[in-house]
């Protein structure tokens, strides 16, 4: 069993001091099973596998936990509307809080503890120095609304989806580290509405199949999938609200700084049926790795070259890669001797 040690405070902005340890690189969820990338409904049951990997626990906590929570607090301080809960989603917010506290305290007992006596709950987050007694179901006994309270202590973003009329609606969430999307913009949208900007996938029917699958996710049978994009600098908050701060960075990639600047950004997406509210919890746990770190694994480096080289143009465009793609592919070619 590996012990979890948190790194000293790192930044995801300004001087960008975020780095992965060799252990974090080794457990990075490299998302490409083949040399070519195309959309697929690559969903699998979210069962525990590969001890020490990001798939061991339903909610993965890693060495960046304390830093990432400090970053979330900074984003919320500037823009409190990154967390949103429509009134009918209050039961789903409590469902989420219960699920997260139960899982963290079971999977990481050295960092999180939960004591319950009926509705009288006592939560310890030793990593962040939090000791909170509250009454489950009574928001007045917490310092803030329950979804915000618990997701301020969780790595990754969360959307909480209401299920009605054979569709899913984005009616609640905490989104401070999105890959260029906005909860405020998507709020209240249906599944196909919030996916409408995605190119090519509509034509091949991916969303019809995915929606049908998601609607039937059952209590106790969560599923997960990986998704990816690229980000310049280890910047977590790439949201439309702050586009003026980071959009320009895509023009800064040169042959000399590709390895340091360009990061592969992988989302471990998790879908869990919430038992009491029947809502669907959509977790988006984000992992960042610089290309310098990534190419320390020769197999990853070679495959990364081939995927980037052969990516269909509409997908490259949607993921915001087009502007520096040639520089990136040229740099990656040296790691693919057969190319």
């Amino acid at each position, binding site marked *: 069993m590996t012990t979890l040690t948190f790194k000293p405070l790192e930044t995801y902005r300004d001087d960008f001091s975020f780095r992965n340890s060799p252990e974090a690189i080794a457990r990075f969820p490299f998302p490409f099973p083949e040399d070519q990338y195309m959309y697929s409904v690559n969903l699998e049951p979210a069962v525990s596998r590969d001890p020490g990997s990001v798939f061991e626990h339903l909610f993965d906590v890693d060495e960046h936990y304390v830093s990432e929570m400090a970053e979330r607090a900074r984003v919320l301080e500037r823009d409190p509307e990154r967390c949103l809960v429509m009134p*009918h989603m209050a039961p789903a917010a409590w469902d989420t809080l219960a699920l997260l506290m139960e899982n963290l305290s079971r999977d990481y007992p050295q960092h999180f503890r939960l004591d319950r006596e009926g509705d009288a709950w006592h939560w310890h987050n030793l990593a962040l120095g939090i000791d909170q007694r509250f009454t489950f179901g009574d928001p007045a006994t917490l310092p803030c609304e329950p979804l915000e309270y618990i997701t301020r202590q969780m790595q990754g973003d969360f959307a909480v989806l*209401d299920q009605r009329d054979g569709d899913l609606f984005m*009616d609640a969430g905490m989104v401070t580290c999105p890959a260029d999307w906005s909860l405020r913009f998507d709020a209240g949208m249906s599944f196909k509405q919030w996916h409408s900007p995605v190119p090519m996938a509509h034509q091949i029917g991916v969303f019809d199949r995915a929606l049908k699958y998601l609607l*039937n996710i*059952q*209590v*106790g049978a969560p599923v997960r999938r990986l998704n990816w994009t690229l980000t310049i600098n280890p910047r977590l908050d790439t949201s439309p609200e702050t586009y003026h701060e980071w959009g320009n960075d895509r023009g800064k990639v040169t042959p000399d700084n590709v390895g340091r600047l360009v990061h592969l950004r992988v989302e471990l997406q998790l879908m869990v049926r919430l*038992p*009491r509210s*029947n809502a669907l919890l959509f977790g988006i746990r984000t992992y960042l790795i610089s290309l310098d770190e990534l190419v320390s694994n020769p197999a990853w480096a070679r495959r990364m070259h081939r995927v980037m080289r052969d990516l269909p143009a509409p997908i490259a465009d949607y993921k915001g890669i087009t502007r520096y793609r040639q520089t990136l592919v040229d740099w990656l070619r040296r790691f693919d001797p057969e190319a």
Partner: protein
Amino acid sequence: MSALLDVRVAAIRELTPVIREYRLEALGGALPGFSAGSHVQLHLPNGRRNAYSLLGDPADTRQYRIAVRQQEASRGGSRYLHQQLRAGDVLRLSAPANLFPLHSEARKHLLVAAGIGITPFLAHSRELLRQGADFELHYAYRAGVSDAYLAELRQLLGPRLAEYPAGQRRLDPAALLRGRPLGSHVYACGPQSLLLDLKEQAAAQGWSDRRVHWEAFAAPEPGQPFRVELARSGRQLEVGADQSLLEALEANGVEIPNLCRGGVCGQCQTPYLKGDVEHRDHFLAAAERSNSLMPCVSRGCGSPILLDI
């Protein structure tokens, strides 16, 4: 597929001469929470898997409660529960699934129950009371036979409960739906005749389908025996008169995803290549019926069915 839960029958209570309530408790720890309108599948020792609504308070995760009416044409499920199951016995359940949830946009909820169809509304009523929601429960029953939970409901709901005892007051869907404000949703559970009447009246009065919700009794009807062949393995199966195709597949080790086992949820949709099929489901569009069937309720009625599995 969800993990299965092992439970013990903690108590059996006779509510009427034909309806019994079963309290089920976890063998260890708590049971998963559930939302109002959820059901579980009971995996009976005789191979039957029947779906029953959870009627307890969704806030109570120590135990599940279900109520079962003995069906005269029972294929073995309700008869087993009534005649053989004893307190202390251990049963296996699927995790709760909800095909009959409350609608979050509804401003008024009209609940319509007949007989044993009352069960999902016991959980719904508690949830709606907790939310402080605007709702009414309309309950048609036969006094002394199918009026389980009447006393409990009178106490819980007061004027929110409207009663329709058989022979005294008829439940008239047209009158019940008339003049309701936009934002009203209607939910019905009971025999097929009531559901059809209600759906017809709702359509006639201009209610959109999105505002009409219903749950049919899920038990598949018996029929004639028929033959099935599995195209990919070449295996041949006989489906007995009181057995569903889904049950026959399961008995032969072929597992197909399923939730309602009553032709509603669409989970078990299976392609077929040829054969005469009596569909019986409420899920498939007419165009889909030429090459898909729902093995939980569909039956052969002539030439053998060749399944594309």
